[in-house]
């Protein structure tokens, strides 16, 4: 049995494992040895995500996660980890961060799982110290790892068809030139279109969503050559924005949105000696966003990002390592409202010590962010500059108390912040240039236990605080709400997850997986306020997910459920604001016949009507079938 976490790290950092070995690994669905990681890290592999199309579908299965989903393929889907808020989770593709300085968050509904080999969520950060500083500069990290190309010619063609006009063909080709120095190259292309006009019942009225169509094109080319790898990625989408369902005036929106995203990233890594290793990463990102509203008023944004990172790893003695990473980011937004620029320098100094029983890891991150924006001040053009500098500590430990038992105890502390987004700072009228960063502090204690690699359970209790939370408040007029550093949240929670695999007939297994989340996320902003002591908006006290797969000689049957307790649509926990709990169940049948894999899915089996976000009903029962042909 392979160690998944090890594999994950390997995919990031090392290119010595053969492609064949990789492929075998990702097809195994089973618990593994208890991870040494002092920070809880949950992983899903491609085989476990057969019933998911988007990254947001998959992350719902992690504990500690609250997904905010506006419904449908086109609806925004963001993830808040441990109630810290969606702007506190960094997202990386193949070890290089995705960034959106404008909104400060990534829409996980726009990242397809096609060609993804695994996704993992680490609280605080991963247990690797040899990585870009940006990846430790947030309160949690969602890593998306794409399928590694193979030297041997590999072709995979697939298509999915589903309810409400869902059509998703994809093609993956990889191979290596004949010359020994020729790089391994992979091409991946995907088209996704959906009409998304699902029926729903809202406030007693049955209706269908309109203006919910989505068209997306994604293609990327990856290149691997020894310690060098590069990726060019292009994404283009056009979609309707169906908007909230309004009583008496549902489906009135004709707003449209389209965007383009192009990035090119490269990394190089070299072991200089057994003691010294270094790596370099670079990225250029271009994104363009176009919005047209009902009155044909048009808004365009362009964002440019230049990113460079270098890191050195030093291992003076066995088990002890130090790393130094330095990242430089340059972000530029061109928008009708303003054209702010931000330069961020991130410097991280990390240390890690591992022996048979202990793993101790810590770092200090220094952030210097300079910003400038050109503004009109009484008919003069002035460049306004501002600077944020912070030192952010992180310390963690994991301990294996018994030699005979695969049990690990773990704990971490992390203090980190997020910079206000460009929208928070500068958006017309809403923006407030005086904003301070939003701070988070996390304390975690937990344990992970693995029983003969057949069953694994992990449980972590945590206490978090968010201070200087950036919240929109009507400080200027009732119509225009501006951003203020006014919120304070105290979070106490418990994450539990387990996985089990039990062979029941020859090589056939029953596989179980479950996650459970308990969150007390309490608003402690103003003791005189009406929301003091209440659970923050859209955060259930209980939520969870589970899946069960039964492998048979004919077909593999997989059942999955995502459930949530009641929530409140605002920070005031009163009956009129209550949103009921829900359970959304799906069934997937899959079968592999030689080169062809077939899947058939039924989503929301019980046709439950529910809302995750108020006024955005989710789809009822729907169907999807898929076919993959590989050679």
């Amino acid at each position, binding site marked *: 049995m392979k160690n998944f976490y090890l594999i994950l790290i390997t995919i990031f950092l090392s290119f010595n494992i053969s492609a064949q070995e990789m492929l075998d690994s990702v097809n195994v669905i089973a618990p593994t040895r208890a991870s040494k990681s002092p920070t809880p890290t949950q992983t899903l592999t491609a085989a476990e995500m057969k019933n998911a199309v988007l990254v947001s579908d998959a992350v719902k299965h992690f504990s500690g996660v609250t997904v905010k989903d506006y419904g449908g393929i086109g609806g925004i889907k963001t993830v808040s980890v441990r109630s810290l808020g969606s702007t506190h989770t960094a997202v990386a593709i193949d070890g290089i961060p995705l960034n959106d300085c404008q909104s400060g968050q990534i829409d996980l509904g726009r990242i397809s799982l096609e060609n993804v080999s695994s996704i993992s969520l680490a609280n605080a950060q991963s247990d690797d110290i040899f990585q870009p500083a940006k990846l430790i500069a947030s309160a949690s990290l969602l890593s998306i790892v794409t399928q590694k190309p193979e030297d041997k010619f590999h072709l995979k063609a697939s298509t999915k068809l589903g309810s409400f006009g869902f059509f998703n063909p994809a093609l993956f080709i990889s191979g290596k030139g004949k010359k020994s120095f020729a790089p391994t190259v992979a091409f991946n292309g995907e088209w996704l279109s959906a009409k998304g006009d699902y029926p729903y019942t809202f406030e007693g009225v049955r209706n269908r969503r309109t203006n919910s169509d989505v068209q997306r094109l994604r293609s990327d080319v990856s290149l691997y050559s020894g310690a060098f790898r590069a990726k060019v990625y292009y994404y283009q989408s056009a979609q309707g924005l169906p908007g909230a369902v309004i009583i008496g005036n549902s489906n009135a929106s004709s707003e449209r949105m389209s965007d383009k995203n192009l990035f090119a990233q490269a990394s190089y890594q070299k072991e200089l000696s057994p003691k010294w290793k270094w790596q370099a990463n670079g990225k250029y990102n271009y994104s363009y966003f176009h919005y047209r509203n009902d009155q044909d008023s048009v808004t365009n944004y362009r964002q440019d990002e230049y990113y460079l990172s270098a890191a050195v790893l030093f291992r003076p003695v066995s088990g002890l390592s130090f790393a130094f990473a330095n990242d430089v980011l340059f972000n530029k937004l061109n928008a009708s409202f303003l054209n702010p620029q931000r330069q961020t320098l991130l410097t991280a100094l990390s240390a890690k010590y591992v022996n048979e029983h202990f793993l101790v890891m810590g770092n200090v991150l220094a952030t210097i962010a300079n910003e400038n924006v050109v503004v009109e001040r009484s008919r003069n053009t002035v460049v306004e500059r501002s600077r944020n500098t912070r030192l952010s500590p992180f310390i963690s430990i994991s301990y294996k108390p018994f030699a005979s038992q695969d049990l690990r105890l773990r704990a971490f502390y992390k203090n980190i912040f997020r910079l206000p987004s460009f929208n928070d700072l500068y958006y017309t009228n809403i923006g407030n240039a005086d904003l301070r960063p939003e701070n988070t502090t996390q304390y975690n204690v937990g344990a992970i*236990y693995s029983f003969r690699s057949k069953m694994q359970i992990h449980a972590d209790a945590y206490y978090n605080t968010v201070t200087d939370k950036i919240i929109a408040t009507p400080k200027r007029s009732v119509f225009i709400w501006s951003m203020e550093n006014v919120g304070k949240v105290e979070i106490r929670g418990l994450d539990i997850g387990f996985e089990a695999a039990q062979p029941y007939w020859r090589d056939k297994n029953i596989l179980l997986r479950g996650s459970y989340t308990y969150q007390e996320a309490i608003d402690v902003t103003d003791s005189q306020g009406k929301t003091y002591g209440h659970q923050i908006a859209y955060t259930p*006290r209980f939520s969870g997910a589970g899946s069960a797969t039964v492998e048979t000689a004919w077909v593999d049957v997989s059942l999955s459920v995502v459930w949530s307790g009641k929530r409140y649509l605002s920070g005031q926990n009163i009956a009129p604001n209550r949103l009921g709990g829900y359970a959304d169940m799906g069934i997937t049948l899959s079968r592999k016949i030689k080169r062809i894999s077939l899947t058939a899915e039924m989503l929301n089996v019980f046709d439950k009507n529910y809302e995750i976000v108020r006024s955005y009903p989710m789809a009822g029962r729907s169907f999807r079938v898929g076919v993959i042909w590989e050679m």
Partner: protein
Amino acid sequence: MKNAYIIILILFFAACKDLKDYPLPQDDINGNQGAAGVYILCEGLFAQNSASLAYYAFEEKRFTRDIFSERNGRKLGDTANDMQQYGGKIYIVVDNSGTVEVVDVRTGKSVKQIPIRNAAGKNRHPRCIAFHEGKAYVACFDSTVCQIDTTTFEIEKTTQAGAYPDGICIADNNIYTSNSGERNGTKTGNTVSIIDIPSFRKIKEIAVADNPFKMAADSEGDVYLASRGSYRGDGPYMLQKINKQMNITSFPNIEALNFCIVRDTAYIYCYNFVTQQNTVLTFDCLREQVIDGDFIKGDMLQTPYGIAVNTQNGDVYIADAGSFTATGDVYCFDKKGAYKFKISDVGINPNAMIFAYAENSGGGNNKTINHIAEVIDYHPAPGQFIGEGGAADYAAELQRVRDILLRADGAGGLVSLGAWGGYITLGFDEPLQRFRIYGNAYYYAGYENIGGSCEPGIVMVSENGAEWYELRGAEYNNPQTIHDYEITYYKPNPIGADVRWTDNKGGAGYVYRNNYHSQPSYYPLWTNAETLTFKGCRLPDNGEQLSGAYLLHAFAYGYADNQPNAESVFDIADAVDNAGNAVALNNVRYLRVYSAVNLYNAVIGEVSTEIGGVEIIDN
């Protein structure tokens, strides 16, 4: 392995305490609040479908947080922006749902949901509503005003106004809409559009302060306007007046965000979003000066969001939106601005209130208590009810009137004052401050608020029975009101003939006999005088011939037998001297009422004020 499952279960149930709704309070408010209850409209938050209508029933001490859903089995919708009453109906304007809900004030039930859509079926985004002669006018963010018939509830026509109208009022046959400017915060408007009602076309656009919002008119036809200033929230929050000649007067010393006008007093509040300070003041719209610049003392209010006055007792209700995201409260202050009570957590962003009065249904002329201590004199003008008692002399007639008006239960019936000028003088054991005069005015169904049988009489007060002061009513400054009117009635010969009159303005006419009243004479026979002369103020004619009915309009306020008893409330604060100057009185013991409209029509005869009793509300 078994142990591991047990651990999972233990952990699972370790913290099983699901979220619980925080209970909302039921406030215990004294049942006697001069109204059966108060409706409170809560705007809700955009795209959350959280608009609601709350109702506090004072007598039952019961608060219903969403009476609309309770009574109608469905939600009100999204962003309920305005609520106004017309007759027995409440009209709720629901902006983002694109509807106007017509709700029966007695039951809370929706009688009609009127969709406000353009030809393409798109929401016009209705914002605010005003009424005029049986029609409702709804201003919409798509720069239009829709005319809705209040009997059929059909949209009859639509006309162009200005951009993003956010206030509407009607004065002098014109609709005024305030053009607030775009909602995305880029452009503020600064104009008011004026629409001529007969042609239903925009006739004028006049420049006002930035971001104009709420509008209301006083009884003189002056339109007041509050403007919110820039989108930065730092104002200026302006109060302006547009007179009939469309001239604009600014009141730079008054900060106004929102207001209401009741009996020519404007109750104005301001919340400055930048300083986060609020002020509430009262303003006399006729004298155009501040009455009390610090009407509500203390810092009880956080973010006032709506204001209304209970006309029965003068209580001022202010809706407080609080943080704008959590439930707001409604505070009640008495007419002097002293805190009375609070209705907590009414809903999100409460912005309008309407009072349900016990007698609001039907004619509403119940009376249960009468405080008249003495009928000092009774000098009616000729009329169809005069002499019906058959009294032989004045003493007998006075006794007949006393028998009617001195009953403590107010159940004695009515006394007619005859045609213009006839009067009665009443005495009281306790000083009067605010009081109700019983009459028999009522509104015709379907034309409810316009009028019906309304026979206005002017009310005068006195501390000593010698120096009299008129209570200034809504028509006081109307140019058609004749303040130095004098009339003489001539004893008919034979006594059963029509009664002739002449006035000091060259007019002449008759009080005609009719078939319904067959007493020997319509002229008061107990007087031996050959002529009867009365002096006073003649109000404008208030009659209108409708097909099949003759309708007598109600004036806005301030006259006896002019409105149903529920609304027929007077305050000695309205007392003025002959020059029209306010007079401060504190020991009013005498009341005089005289018929104040000189109008005859064939269907219902002469307009004559009737009196059934007086109830002291405050003293």
